[in-house]
């Protein structure tokens, strides 16, 4: 439980910390330190297992189907990074306390910082690659928010966006790579992946997976050619730069490479891709760092260079190089974090970071100067400091690379060259800032030492630099061993953490680097002049230009696709459906299956011909809306007959009654709309639409034919067998609706109710004046309610109600049921509205249709939940038989109550919809004061 806790705590802290913002800056800083302190305490007991090379695994299932689990795994490597994150995180909190101004949003700052810390811990402690990826993305997001912490600065926003775009893009590549690895190994669990190194490396997809994963690592760790985002991320507040861009986030890529080292490293592809990228980054970063006038810019490029160094070490593929890489991770984190903090102090006290203006600070802040000088010496690789030790190991390893022929000289030369640059820029940091004359035009003058405890974190880190440099074995020996052992999968080579290994070639290289660097610094003006001859590429401008081009392209795509025309959307949709189905359909072709064709009888053929002609006529003469509607109703009627013809009496009855309601609805709508459609589309467009329509029709014909002639088996035998004994009814369709699939039906009537209420809501306060005539020159009749119709309609009502009651009651056993009965009742009531008018009818209907819908849903739900009282699942039905006088034996099923609910919901919904439309005309709305709707 302790490992998930370690990851979870910072997130909880992120929620809790803002609550302490009221208590002042000190309160929130203390509150923000608590999660890290608890986490350190929780990690401590595991040390005994880890120092012996063991691992701790806490795993919980999450989505086993996807191979994703809450799996947290602690080994030496994870512990090393976790300690860096936690300890430096604590120091950063102390430092931030003094760095942030009281006017700044400290709650947001600490909250984001803690979120970032949690995500980072998640990466290093994940025991599942997918889980790690989630945290990986979280660090990209939180670092975006942290870099853009000063949201009012455009540069900060742009720098943050660039960082997010680069690292987020790398995250996508990493996702793909991890999915490939998971596919190869068959598991995303880290233990399985690390054990399957040989399998992965032998797999055909290994180069692809490796490239993708390295893309993720290189973008995150600012390797060439993705290094450009890191210097621009320096727009962040300095504590953030010190934390994210020296110790943690940029080390995530390094961590990933070290983590997957046993699974991926040791091949030629690994060697060339990783070591050459590292070499390029090492040299480029060190070279550019020389020429930066911005303090943080210098440190940023130096960080790029050191990250390249670590990458190069990991790429070399030898075990000793990997140990050196891990060692340098520790050393770089300590000296670089302290240097960033020192730079922040200088910025804080002088108001600028421009080294052309900051000079001679030794006189004003000797204490800070001493600390910065020690840290910078470590960065340069001066003996007795930790940077020297790992750099020495690096020099030694660069000599061990067995490249063919003269190539063997390349790594040592590059290493020495980078060493020279490193000494030169470190010397610049020290000499230019603290000596070199007097300050020039500082915004704050005279500068003085910062608050006592703002230097405290720097002191701790500098102390660590010296301790590691002088007593390496005592200071980091066991931790380094545990981490190296975890990285290498057990077998750690013999290495010695001595301060001086005797006079050998690496030491000579160090001397060359040291004096070469000093010489270079002393001749710096020549180099500056040389460098000034080249036009510097502004990565940000290039990046912004690329981004705005993409935005433009995206906007064009969107406005091309989404032009506000339903006509066009429908066209694209249908055309894509046709395009997708055309290949499978070509395979099927004109396929007559095993069952063959059955004989056609004359009446059916005639009906089919009428149906086809009416459908085509509807489309052809659609501009005459009224006639098209009449033709449409013919189609609907024949569809009802079709159902009757092919053994579906329930469907026939439903279709028939729905058809009536639909046509009434459309007639009503037509009353308000223009009754003809103007000819708008061009001939070419109509031809195109006809072709699309014909293709769609042909496709449906072929599919239907293929289906109809194939033999099939259905789950319906179950329904046929159990309808009577299980559901108590012989009409299987009805029993399915109210019993077997009752829950579906409950859903359907709910949808019906929502649609009706939606219609009511849409039309509630709307008034539409119908046109004075039908638009073809005919005025409406003055006889609104014809006498004949009125006289026929009134006696029809009780008759129709009786029929619907009969249909309803018999529904369980013979064609009928709630849906059909409800529709028949609706039609009967609608007839009254048509014959006698809204007002007359509404006066006689004393209930609101909303209530009918509500009651219907209520009945259906009660009937369903009644079974719960007897311990049966929702919607279990029961039935029995009673004998009524005259009628005889009669079956009563609880499903009948359910069907009653259906019945009422259908009536309520249908009438509410139609009456709402009917009331639209202001004519009827004003007159019907006693409105029941």
């Amino acid at each position, binding site marked *: 439980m302790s490992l998930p806790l370690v990851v979870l705590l910072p997130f909880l802290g992120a929620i809790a910390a803002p609550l302490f913002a009221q208590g002042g800056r000190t309160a929130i800083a203390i509150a923000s330190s608590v999660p890290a302190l608890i986490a350190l305490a929780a990690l401590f007991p595991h040390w005994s297992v880890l120092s012996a090379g063991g691992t701790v695994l806490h795993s919980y299932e999450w989505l086993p189907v996807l191979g994703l689990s809450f799996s947290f795994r602690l080994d030496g490597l994870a512990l090393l990074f976790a300690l860096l994150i936690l300890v430096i995180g604590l120091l950063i909190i102390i430092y931030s306390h003094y760095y942030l101004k009281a006017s700044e949003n400290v709650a947001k700052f600490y909250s984001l910082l803690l979120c970032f810390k949690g995500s980072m811990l998640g990466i290093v402690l994940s025991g599942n690659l997918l889980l790690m990826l989630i945290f990986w993305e979280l660090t990209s997001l939180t670092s975006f928010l942290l870099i853009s912490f000063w949201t009012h600065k455009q540069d900060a926003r742009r720098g943050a966006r660039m960082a997010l775009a680069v690292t987020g893009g790398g995250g996508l590549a990493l996702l793909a790579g991890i999915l490939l690895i998971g596919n190869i190994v068959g598991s995303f669990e880290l233990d399985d992946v690390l054990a399957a190194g040989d399998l992965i490396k032998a797999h055909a997809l290994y180069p692809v997976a490796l490239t993708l994963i390295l893309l993720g690592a290189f973008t995150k760790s600012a390797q060439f050619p993705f290094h450009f985002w890191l210097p621009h991320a320096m727009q962040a507040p300095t504590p953030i730069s010190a934390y994210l861009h020296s110790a943690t986030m940029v080390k995530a890529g390094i961590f990933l490479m070290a983590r997957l080292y046993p699974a991926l490293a040791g091949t030629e592809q690994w060697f060339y891709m990783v070591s050459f990228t590292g070499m390029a980054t090492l040299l480029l970063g060190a070279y550019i760092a020389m020429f930066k006038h911005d303090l943080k810019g210098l440190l940023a490029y130096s960080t790029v260079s050191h990250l390249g160094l670590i990458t190069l070490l990991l790429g070399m593929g030898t075990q000793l190089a990997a140990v050196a890489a891990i060692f340098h991770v520790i050393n770089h984190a300590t000296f670089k974090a302290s240097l960033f903090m020192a730079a922040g102090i200088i910025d804080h006290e002088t108001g600028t970071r421009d080294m052309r203006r900051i000079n001679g600070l030794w006189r004003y802040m000797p204490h800070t100067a001493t600390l910065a000088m020690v840290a910078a010496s470590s960065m340069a690789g001066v003996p007795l400091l930790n940077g020297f030790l790992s750099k020495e190991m690096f020099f030694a390893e660069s000599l061990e690379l067995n490249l063919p022929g003269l190539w063997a000289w390349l790594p040592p030369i590059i290493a020495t060259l980078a060493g020279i640059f490193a000494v030169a820029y470190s010397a610049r940091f020290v000499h230019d800032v603290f000596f070199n004359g007097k300050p020039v035009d500082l915004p704050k003058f005279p500068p003085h030492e910062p608050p006592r405890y703002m230097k405290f974190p720097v002191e701790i880190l500098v102390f660590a630099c010296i301790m590691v440099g002088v007593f390496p074995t005592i200071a980091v020996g066991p931790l380094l061993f545990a981490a190296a052992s975890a990285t290498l999968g057990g077998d750690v080579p013999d290495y010695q953490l001595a301060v001086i290994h005797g006079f050998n070639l690496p030491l000579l290289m160090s001397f060359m680097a040291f004096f070469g660097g000093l010489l270079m610094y002393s001749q710096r003006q020549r180099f500056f002049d040389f460098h000034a001859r080249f036009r510097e590429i502004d990565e940000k401008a290039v990046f912004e230009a690329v981004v705005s081009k993409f935005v433009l392209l995206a906007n064009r795509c969107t406005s091309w696709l989404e032009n506000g025309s339903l006509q066009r959307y429908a066209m694209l949709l249908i055309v894509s459906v046709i395009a997708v189905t055309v290949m499978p359909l070509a395979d099927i072709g004109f396929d007559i299956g095993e069952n063959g064709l059955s004989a056609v009888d004359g009446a059916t053929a005639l009906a*089919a011909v009428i149906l086809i002609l009416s459908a085509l006529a509807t489309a052809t003469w659609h501009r005459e809306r009224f006639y098209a509607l009449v033709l449409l109703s013919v189609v609907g009627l024949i569809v009802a007959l079709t159902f009757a013809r092919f053994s579906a009496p329930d*469907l026939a009855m439903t279709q028939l009654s729905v058809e009536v309601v639909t046509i009434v609805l459309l007639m009503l709508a037509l009353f308000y709309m223009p009754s003809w459609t103007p000819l708008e589309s061009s001939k070419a467009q109509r031809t195109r639409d006809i072709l699309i329509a014909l293709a769609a029709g042909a496709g*449906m014909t072929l599919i239907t034919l293929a289906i109809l002639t194939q033999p099939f088996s259905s789950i*319906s035998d179950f329904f046929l067998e159990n309808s009577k004994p299980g559901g108590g009814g012989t009409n299987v369709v009805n029993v399915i609706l109210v019993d077997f699939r009752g829950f579906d039906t409950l859903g359907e009537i709910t949808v019906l109710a929502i649609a009706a209420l939606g219609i009511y809501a849409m039309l509630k306060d709307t008034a539409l004046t119908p046109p004075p005539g039908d638009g073809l020159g005919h005025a409406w009749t003055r006889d609104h309610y014809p006498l004949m119709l009125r006289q026929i309609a009134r006696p029809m009502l009780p008759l129709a109600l009786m029929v619907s009651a009969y249909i309803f009651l018999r529904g369980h056993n013979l064609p009928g049921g709630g849906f059909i009965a409800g529709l028949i009742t609706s039609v009967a009531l609608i007839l009254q509205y048509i014959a006698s008018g809204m007002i007359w009818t509404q006066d006689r209907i004393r209930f609101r249709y909303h209530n009918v819908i509500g009651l219907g849903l209520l009945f259906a739900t009660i009937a369903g939940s009644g079974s719960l009282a007897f311990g049966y699942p929702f919607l279990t039905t029961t039935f029995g038989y009673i004998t009524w006088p005259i009628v005889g034996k009669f079956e009563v099923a609880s499903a009948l109550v359910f069907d009653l609910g259906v019945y009422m919901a259908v009536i309520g919904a249908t009438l509410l919809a139609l009456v709402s439309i009917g009331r639209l005309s202001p004519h009827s709305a004003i007159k019907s004061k006693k409105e029941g709707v």
Partner: protein
Amino acid sequence: MELLFALVIGALTASGVYLLLRARTFPVVMGLTLLSYGVNLFLFATGRLATGEQPVIGTASGYSDPLPQALVLTAIVIGFAMTAFLVVLALRNLADNENDHVDGQHETPSEQTQDQEVTSK
């Protein structure tokens, strides 16, 4: 018989799709109605064509597949609700925007000139 049935569905689909691609609300609603006839018949067809085999126990020697029928029955009713909703949407649009276009256009040229007259007044 199967071929005839397939042709019926094809004709319904073709007419429905053509109307769906028109520029005004009313033809689109009619097109959807035709299309839903086609779709309902198609769903129904997955239970194959049977003559005189209504799925009512004890009334026939064999029974057609009741499951597609139950599905289509609710589909018909829901289809009506959908059509009604769509019609009302069109009416509301007509009331608010005095416009029954669905092609992104607002007025026909002749109506536009009328509009300009109204605004100039």
